[in-house]
């Protein structure tokens, strides 16, 4: 009985209701008994945020972008004397990097904005505490989570090559190719990056034997 306008056989809905529950009963339940059975989480689950301290430059982008203001960063400057350099360099040293997971809403913006891949998602989620204050993870604790970071997903074979790859290839090809790649001419660009799958329409005219396109 889907509508008041077209009523089916009387009692059909009642029988269907009984059938649904009976069928569900005979099927196996998909419930995972959590403390006994570890949940099978996908690798990109947002469990907790890990910090790779060596990558952090104290740029403060994460703290500024955090919608909850739950990242606390303190640092000081240190002089590094580089032998052979004209004068001593300055670099930032991280004193404190805390994430308050009682405030964090797991949006992942800090991880998105981090320019140096110092922050990572990990699927670990069992860090509940009796006291809410204990949810403030300091940089040592955040660093320990690094062990649980899953390996990054494999590069999409159909996607563009990463910036680092493209740059390295360009450099390897020599100075002439490097400047040519910056121009918008598609034929040259394609020879610079053979795995690129989206050439400009103008390149269709000339044959590209080293880069056959399967969708044609």
């Amino acid at each position, binding site marked *: 009985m889907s509508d008041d306008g077209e009523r089916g056989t009387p009692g059909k809905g009642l029988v269907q209701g*009984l059938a649904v*529950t*009976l069928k*569900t*009963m005979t099927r196996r339940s998909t*419930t995972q*008994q959590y403390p006994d059975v570890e949940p099978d989480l996908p690798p990109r689950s947002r469990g907790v945020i890990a910090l790779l301290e060596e990558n952090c430059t104290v740029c403060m982008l994460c703290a500024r972008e955090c919608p909850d203001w739950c990242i606390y960063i303190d640092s000081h400057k240190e002089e590094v004397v580089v032998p052979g350099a004209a004068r001593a360099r300055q670099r930032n040293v991280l004193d404190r990097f805390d994430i308050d997971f009682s405030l964090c809403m797991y949006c992942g913006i800090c991880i998105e904005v981090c320019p140096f891949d110092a922050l990572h998602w990990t699927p670990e989620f069992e860090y509940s505490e009796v006291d809410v204050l204990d949810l403030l993870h300091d940089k040592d604790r955040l660093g320990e989570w690094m062990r649980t970071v899953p390996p990054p997903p494999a590069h999409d074979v159909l996607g563009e090559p990463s910036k680092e790859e493209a740059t390295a290839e360009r450099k390897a090809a020599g100075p002439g190719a490097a400047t040519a790649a910056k121009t918008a001419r598609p034929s040259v660009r394609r020879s610079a990056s053979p795995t690129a799958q989206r050439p400009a329409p103008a390149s269709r005219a000339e044959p590209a034997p080293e880069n056959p396109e399967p969708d044609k």
Partner: protein
Amino acid sequence: MPIWLDLAIRVLAVVAGFLVLPLVVGQTEHKVMAHMQGRLGPMYAGGYHGWAQLVADGVKFVQKEDITPRDADRRVFRLAPIVALFPYLLVLLVIPLGPGGLVAQALDVGLFFVLAVLGVGVLAVLMSAWASANKYSLLGGLRGAAQLLGYELPLVLAAASVAMAAGTLSLPGIVEAWRPWWLLWQAPAALVFFVAGLAEIRRPPFDMPIADSELVFGYMTEYTGLRFAFFLLAEYVGIVVIAALTTVLFLGGWHGPFADQLGWLWTLVKIFAVSFVIIWLRVSYPRLREDQLQRLCWLVLVPVALAQLVLTAAVKVLT
């Protein structure tokens, strides 16, 4: 065997059944309902698939504080759960389990006794509702009273039909007279009796008096601890009683292969099958609205029961 020993054994057996059967049905409800909803139900209590869940619940209820509201009518308030529970115990006394007098007390007016005692249930509802001094309780109780009084009629008419067919009011006598073709002949009465019985024990989809989404918990709202547990126990004994009555009156009680030896088993199997259907209906159907509830009773069940009476009488006269 001296008469006092005989009496003691019979009473003990009934009390044991009274305590064990509802627990089995309750546990079955936990598990069946869970699996029908794609869940697992209790899994930890007792170690193996939560078999001791209801025992744990009972222990919990005993530990809880027994609160009587200040404005409540104390004596009536405290008496109501017993009044709710006791009739079912009495009904179990006269339900025959197997052939050859396997019944605690074979009354000649067994059916009459059962129907009369079941009618006491409405009293418990009204007592608890009024004595609670709570408007939700009162609303639930009045709904309950209207429902119980209304559904009493089809229940009695359907039972009368089968009594007329058997020519006796004794429950063992009815089972004795039962023939398999009665399944067809008395089918409308069986259906009416079962549905009215569901309403009598206020099980979903007829749980309008309790209706937890609108009336908190109806007439049980103010009860805590052991007294609340008594109400819950009464509900599960009610399932057993209605299933047993349906079995005895309409499904042929102990009739089945090897009835002489395994009669009691057949009765129990049928009781549990009917109990399963009661649980199944609870899972499948939403609650009836108050007007739908009364409409079903007066416009469907009562006419069907009356027509069944006419049919029974006609067949009885012709054969």
